[in-house]
């Protein structure tokens, strides 16, 4: 079992980390001249959890508005200039970070950086664009109702987190976003787009020195703007979500389904949890990236019940989620749910076998080089490490940490973590056919099964 080690050190690549003197802004840029393209991510360590009550979607809305006009350029002019440069620039909202993701042909780097600075420091939030964006996002939310996978994810998050901000949809609810006005969007921008939260991560055909210099200037501009505002500089703070007190099941009722979307899970762990690597291995054996995982073998290969069956953690500054996902035919859904619950119960009770442990351990160690084998993956790792306050190099440490694990400690961690009696279960399907058999499959009294129409907010 050999550990894969990156050869990046002997390439002509430079990785910079610097906090500019007097500023909190951070930058990490990796030079990669193999193609004439530069990838730049400008992130702020804050996110959708700051939306606030009845303001779901506000962070995403504010971020999208950054690209819809500055004091100098209209939305159309921004778009024309980006296209002229051969460049991309999009906004991504996560629960605890927001990111302007961009790429540009290296020959156009300077005008691109100028535009990027302008978008970040001088947005104009025009009323007409606010009105248009409300219509567009509302329609995207409506359109998503046609996609059962997206519907299932949205319903599961809301159901699992029971009112905690982690359960709020990133795009928001239509009833909330209808009420947004320019004043609160501007106020949210001032709260979120600030120098102390700034993080620039990129790679490509540019010099690290140039990117460093640009980040310093951007941080300086933001600090200057903020000095005129009276804002506290506290870092993002999120309260931990509360675990459920019993097993629950929600049917998201949609007519004419020949297939369902099952999500089941519980509150997860932090990546800094002492049990993280043990549970990482345990989860990989259950349903990680493998056709040989327990779920894929039992649900797909042996029974043909679902095209896919997997399990995964989602991480945040607080414990987020651990979930199992499968999408069987409606006719097989009760059996597939019952069997999946049995697998989860067995995982908690007996852990993984010696063979499963050895196979998964070997596989994870041997494939660990793929965690950081390209510049874009290394960029994503840095974003994750910085936004979740992980130690530098955490993502690269997986192979060494996994190599030291023993089966008994993995199984003990699974025993302590997995809570089959407190799972949240959501099923997107046709309720009239499924309610009774699903209650039986989940071992929940039928009158405790919750049903909500798929088009409810």
């Amino acid at each position, binding site marked *: 079992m050999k550990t894969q080690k990156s050869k990046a050190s002997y390439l002509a690549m430079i990785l910079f980390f610097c906090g500019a003197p007097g500023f909190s802004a951070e930058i990490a840029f990796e030079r990669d001249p193999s193609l004439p393209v530069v990838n730049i991510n400008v992130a702020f360590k804050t996110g959708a959890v700051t939306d606030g009550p009845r303001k779901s979607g506000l962070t995403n809305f504010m971020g999208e508005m950054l690209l819809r006009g500055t004091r100098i350029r209209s939305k159309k002019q921004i778009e024309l200039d980006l296209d002229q440069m051969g460049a991309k620039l999009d906004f991504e909202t996560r629960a605890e970070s927001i990111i302007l993701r961009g790429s540009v042909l290296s020959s156009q780097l300077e005008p691109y950086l100028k535009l990027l600075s302008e978008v970040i420091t001088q947005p104009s939030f025009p009323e007409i664009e606010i009105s248009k964006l409300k219509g567009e996002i509302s329609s995207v939310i409506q359109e998503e109702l046609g996609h059962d996978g997206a519907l299932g994810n949205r319903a599961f998050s809301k159901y699992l987190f029971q009112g905690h901000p982690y359960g709020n949809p990133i795009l928001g609810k239509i009833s909330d976003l209808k009420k947004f006005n320019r004043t609160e969007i501007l106020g949210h921008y001032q709260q979120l787009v600030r120098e102390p939260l700034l993080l620039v991560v990129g790679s490509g055909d540019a010099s690290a020195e140039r990117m460093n210099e640009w980040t310093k200037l951007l941080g300086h501009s933001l600090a200057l703007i903020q000095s005129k505002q009276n804002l506290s500089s506290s870092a993002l703070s999120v309260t931990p979500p509360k675990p459920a007190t019993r097993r629950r099941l929600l049917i998201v009722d949609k007519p004419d389904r020949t*297939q369902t979307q099952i999500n089941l899970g519980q509150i997860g762990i932090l990546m800094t949890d002492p049990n993280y690597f043990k549970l990482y291995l345990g989860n990989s054996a259950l349903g990680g990236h493998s056709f040989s995982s327990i779920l*894929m073998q039992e649900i797909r290969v042996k029974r043909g019940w679902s*095209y896919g069956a997997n399990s995964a953690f989602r991480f945040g500054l607080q414990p987020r989620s651990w979930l199992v996902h499968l999408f069987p035919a409606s006719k097989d859904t009760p059996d597939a749910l019952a069997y999946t619950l049995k697998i989860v119960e067995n995982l908690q009770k007996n852990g993984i076998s010696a063979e499963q442990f050895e196979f998964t351990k070997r596989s994870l160690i041997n494939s660990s*080089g*793929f965690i950081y084998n390209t510049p874009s993956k290394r960029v994503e790792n840095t974003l994750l490490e910085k936004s979740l306050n992980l130690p530098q190099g955490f993502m690269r440490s997986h192979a060494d940490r996994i190599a030291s694990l023993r089966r008994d400690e993995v199984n003990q961690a699974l025993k302590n973590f997995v809570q089959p009696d407190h799972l949240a279960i959501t099923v997107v399907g046709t309720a009239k056919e499924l309610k009774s058999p699903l209650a039986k499959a989940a071992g929940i009294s039928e009158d405790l099964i919750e049903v909500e129409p798929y088009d409810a907010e």
Partner: protein
Amino acid sequence: MTKTILLLSLLFFSGCSSISSDQLSSDARTATQRVPQEILPLSGSFKVNRIQFENGLRLLVVEDHSSPTFAYQTWFKVGSRNEVPGKTGLAHLFEHLMFKESKNLKDGDFDRLLESAGAEGENAFTSRDYTAYIQEMPATQLELIIKAESERMTQVIVNDQSFKTEREVVQNERRFRNENSPDGIMDQELFQLAFRQHPYHWPVIGYQQDLDSMSARDASQFYRTFYAPNHATIVVVGDVKTEVVRDLVKKHYGSLVSQPTPEAIQIAEPNQTDPRRKQLALNIQVEKLLIGYKIPGFTNDDMPTLDVIQNLLTGGKNNRLRDALVETGIASSVGSYDFEDRDPSLFIIMANLQKGKQAGKAEKIILRQLKQLSRELVSSAELQRAKNKSQFSFYQGLESNYEKAYFLGTYESLAGHFNAGLLHEKRVAAVTARDVRRVAQRYFQPQSRTVITGVKK
């Protein structure tokens, strides 16, 4: 590209490249006859070693030592185009069976062998014209993957039990991609209505009744006909030495015997003489529109211009259809795709409407925009922006080992030589405003139009 274990089969890809068939096939034949190994430029400092073996197997190697990993892809010139009525979906179903038992590997051993060695992104996909098997490996595992892939090229055993289970998995995939997806249903209807004779008429995943009636014997027959070294191209990109790859491929594939090339598909689709349309009542909240125009096969000289048109209509941030539909509050999103298929295929325009807006209104606006494109010359600035978008996409599509291998495999399978993709980019750069007008006039004719609208049930 994010790895997802759920996507065993990506049924089809959209794209935007093509070139003259005469030039390509002639270049390829001449090169093969003159030298069994060529060294040709790809992009930047990357070179392609293109090797032809005596049994007809083609090997392409690109060395990139920036990380100790490599992509290994095997492309077969077989897709749903090679099926016959009553056996639709066989190419894709067989793709699934390639992961089953073979002469020296029991069911599941192929996956376990590769995963244990650290394979990443082990997957496959089937299109109308080709099928590809893909994975990335640690650099130390070159011979392992070559040996395993050479075994399954000709030694797969199709038994009744694995056939039946995998057919059920494919039925579930069909439920996922088509039956329960409004976009999947509309896409299937579009091709079904636009084509009446040609195999592009049916979906790659096949019809349910055909899958139900298929047997393991059908699959075995299909395998013997289409899976042979002379129908395949292997692409290896990453931390490898060309000579080592060449020698190991020769060692493990060299004894495989070439097979007669199946008779080429000669079914010519009758000329469409009238516009066609269909309205579907779906479980959706906002209306959807899909328009398809007949376009030539990918080797036609007009394809680079259609690529430019695609960028003019919906490429980048600012484009004609976004201006006309999204900025005016009629649609929430709009897109277009010029399918690069071997035979004449479709130029597709899709729109998701905003709440309360009708697909018919969007259709009228789109037709007006197409008419304008066929009457007025596009300005040089707008034309240049469209070309810049294309150039940017081209470079972005070559970033990782996987992407380089995908690019090479696609054009080797479709055109017989990867130079097709490179020449396409050169031709895009030479497209003029008059070309755009001429090509728009030629292909955006009412009689070659097929329209599918999705309305709320």
